[in-house]
């Protein structure tokens, strides 16, 4: 019950705040104080919800630090590394909860396999890793226990089919492209970095391009575009709308539902829904709704999922900061050759919005990443498109997919080259940041955005 006192303190402070706001409303009679009161109450509900969720998570029955026999079913699509594989196992009676298990590379296991194991389950360390795994609802880890397969297909049939489909696509990349290139293409189209070498992961971080392999609005847009375009020929509008939504949800499940793609999917579905119902789509409301849904689903994402924070901050940067920067520097709305101006503005605003989070979590932020991103982003949509074409072509003919892979190979080698080059050129400053500095930084960014916005509306009215 270590988390009791902080929660109690938060509840106490917020109740006091609510009381103050309410009294202010009675004396000052301004509507804003009612809103603030309600807002504070929501914070209390949120804190209680978090505490309840955490209590549930910790009540799982796992035996730590002792050699034990245990049983369970694999609930993830095992992630394959060079010499090992990682599975998430949902423990069966008498135990409960999920644990992460590292196993030899072969025999290969699959989603829905039921296993008998014998080994030691440990608590994850250090604290940061423990919080990350807690966010993933994983209680313990076990390395190379004795393992025996006792059954398969014990999971959801839909998920099993989706994972199989995904692995077919990855296989089609691997058949036509070298290791690095196929791994990168997999990351771009389906997310995931498990196949990347540690060197390449570091290079992506140093060059500020890791976000490329986090699935986002890009991927969802391409899917919507392709699916709607295809289906609209054969089906009624209503039916193709429903199917597209199912396919988006399928894509999210298939790729492991990382924060950035869930956010993009919720917002994408809202766009489609607004069009279907003839309502206006308001991006600000969509952002808030996406965040709310995700936090309701898993309250830990708010604090412990860096991907969640980066995804939302970057998006807010693009929505609010981008137009402010464009106006301030009087840059036109022309995208420029291969969309460089577009990419430059988007990257700059997104990177400025996420910089403190990057520095706090990864100890580095590189200004040269702007150039790296501008150079790469122009080629990324085409590469992703080619990736999907290779996947579909491979279902028709191997040779067809091979021909497309040559074009993809050129782009992928170019992108990998830029990433490695800018990893060397990166000017990292990795000083520790105080919370006060972060706070000040965001105040300045928000201040800038508001200031430019006001000036702009003044010049328009005058």
């Amino acid at each position, binding site marked *: 019950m270590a988390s009791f006192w902080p929660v109690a303190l938060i509840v106490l402070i917020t109740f006091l705040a609510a009381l103050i706001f309410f009294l202010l409303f009675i004396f000052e009679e301004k509507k804003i104080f009612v809103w603030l009161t309600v807002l504070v109450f929501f914070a209390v509900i949120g804190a209680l919800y978090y505490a309840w969720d955490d209590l549930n998570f910790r009540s799982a029955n796992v035996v730590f630090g002792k050699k034990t026999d245990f049983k369970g079913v694999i609930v993830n699509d095992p992630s394959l590394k*060079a*010499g090992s594989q990682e599975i998430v196992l949902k423990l069966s009676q008498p135990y409960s909860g999920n644990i992460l298990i590292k196993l*030899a*590379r*072969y*025999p*290969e296991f699959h989603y829905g396999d039921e296993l008998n194991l014998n080994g030691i389950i440990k608590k994850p360390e250090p604290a940061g890793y423990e919080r990350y795994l807690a966010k993933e609802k994983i209680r313990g880890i076990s390395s190379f226990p004795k393992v025996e397969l006792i059954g398969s297909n014990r999971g959801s049939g839909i998920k099993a089919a989706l994972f199989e489909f995904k692995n077919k696509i990855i*296989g089609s990349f*691997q*058949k*036509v*492209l*070298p*290791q690095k*290139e*196929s791994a990168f293409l997999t990351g771009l189209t389906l997310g995931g970095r498990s196949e990347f070498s540690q060197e390449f992961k570091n290079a992506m971080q140093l060059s500020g391009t890791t976000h490329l392999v986090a699935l986002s609005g890009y991927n969802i847009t391409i899917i919507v575009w392709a699916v709607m375009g295809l289906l609209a020929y054969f089906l009624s509008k209503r039916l193709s709308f429903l199917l597209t939504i199912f396919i988006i949800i399928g894509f999210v499940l298939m790729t492991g539902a990382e924060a950035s793609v869930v956010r993009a999917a919720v917002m994408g579905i809202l766009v489609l829904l607004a069009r279907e119902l003839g309502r206006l789509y308001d991006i600000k409301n969509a952002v808030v709704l996406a965040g709310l849904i995700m936090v309701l689903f898993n309250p830990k994402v708010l604090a412990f999922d860096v991907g969640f924070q980066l995804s939302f901050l970057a998006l807010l940067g693009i929505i609010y900061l981008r137009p402010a920067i464009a106006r301030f520097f009087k840059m036109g709305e022309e995208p420029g*050759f*291969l*969309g460089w101006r577009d990419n430059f503005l988007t990257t700059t605003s997104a990177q400025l919005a996420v910089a403190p989070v990057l520095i706090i979590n990864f100890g580095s932020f590189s200004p040269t990443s702007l150039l790296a991103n501008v150079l790469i982003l122009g080629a990324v949509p*085409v590469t992703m498109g080619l990736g999907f074409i290779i996947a579909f072509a491979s279902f028709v003919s*191997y040779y067809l997919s*091979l*021909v497309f*892979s*040559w*074009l993809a*190979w*050129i782009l992928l*080698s170019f992108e990998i080259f830029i990433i490695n080059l800018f990893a060397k050129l990166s000017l990292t400053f990795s000083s520790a940041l105080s919370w006060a500095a972060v706070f000040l930084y965001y105040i300045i960014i928000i201040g800038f955005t508001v200031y430019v916005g006001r000036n702009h509306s003044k010049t328009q009215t005058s």
Partner: protein
Amino acid sequence: MLDEIILKLKRHKNKAIILVVALVVLDFLIFWQISGEGRTNRDLRIYFLDVGQGDSELVLLPGGVKVLIDGGPPNSRILGNLEKIILPTDRYIDLVMMSHPQLDHFGGLIDVFKRYRVGAFLTNGRKGEAQAFADLEKIIEENSVKTVVLAKNDVIRYENNHFKIISPDKNTLQAKELNDTVLVAELTSNNSKTLFTGDIGVNIEEELLKVFNSPIDILKVAHHGSKYSSFGGFLEVLNPKVAVIEVGKNSYGHPTAEVLKRLEGVGSKIFRTDLDGIIELIIDGQTIKVLKNI
């Protein structure tokens, strides 16, 4: 009419540029592929791959036919090795031979079958005891690769190049010890002789001496330099000019001082994948050129 086209082109300038560039590049690539197919390199090239503790050799016959013998342990290192040697757009290996079904010889082959198209899979027909063997069988079946079982006296011929299988025979194939069942292959090509020995021990070496009486040029030293292989009498008959030991970090003491001494005793030049990385031998019919750490 022409004005209309120019107008359209102007409107879609970026797309037009991308399309033209893509087509030109694709053109070059296709020509590269075609000219690559016809490239008649008449050298024999033998690569001893750096895959850690395990065996893997790639043979490029004069004319470009690719034969991969073993794939090392299941650590995926073979892929990086192959990509240094084979063009990135070339995804085909003619023959994959598994000397015997032990994990440090076939583990990496699972990755190879996942990522390359393979003409045929050559094996001694024995099943492996390692759990991963089922994964190997599965991937071979999934890709419908033809499997051919070889034994003593079978020969693979391409133009003037011959792989002759000189072990196992009916009896040794039944051995309890998997190392006795190794497909031992003698390659005759470009005026040179190379012996691939897998993990054979002294007992099989003695058997081989019954049919072997002439020296060879290149020896893949048996069983990562174990002292229970490569006995003096065998090495004296073979008298290899170049001896390559495929070895990585291990707890068996491979390669053993005894074997190194015996090889020195017969005057072989010794190369080791743990010290020399990928070792490339280029044989033009007159000389053997050895390149290290390629």
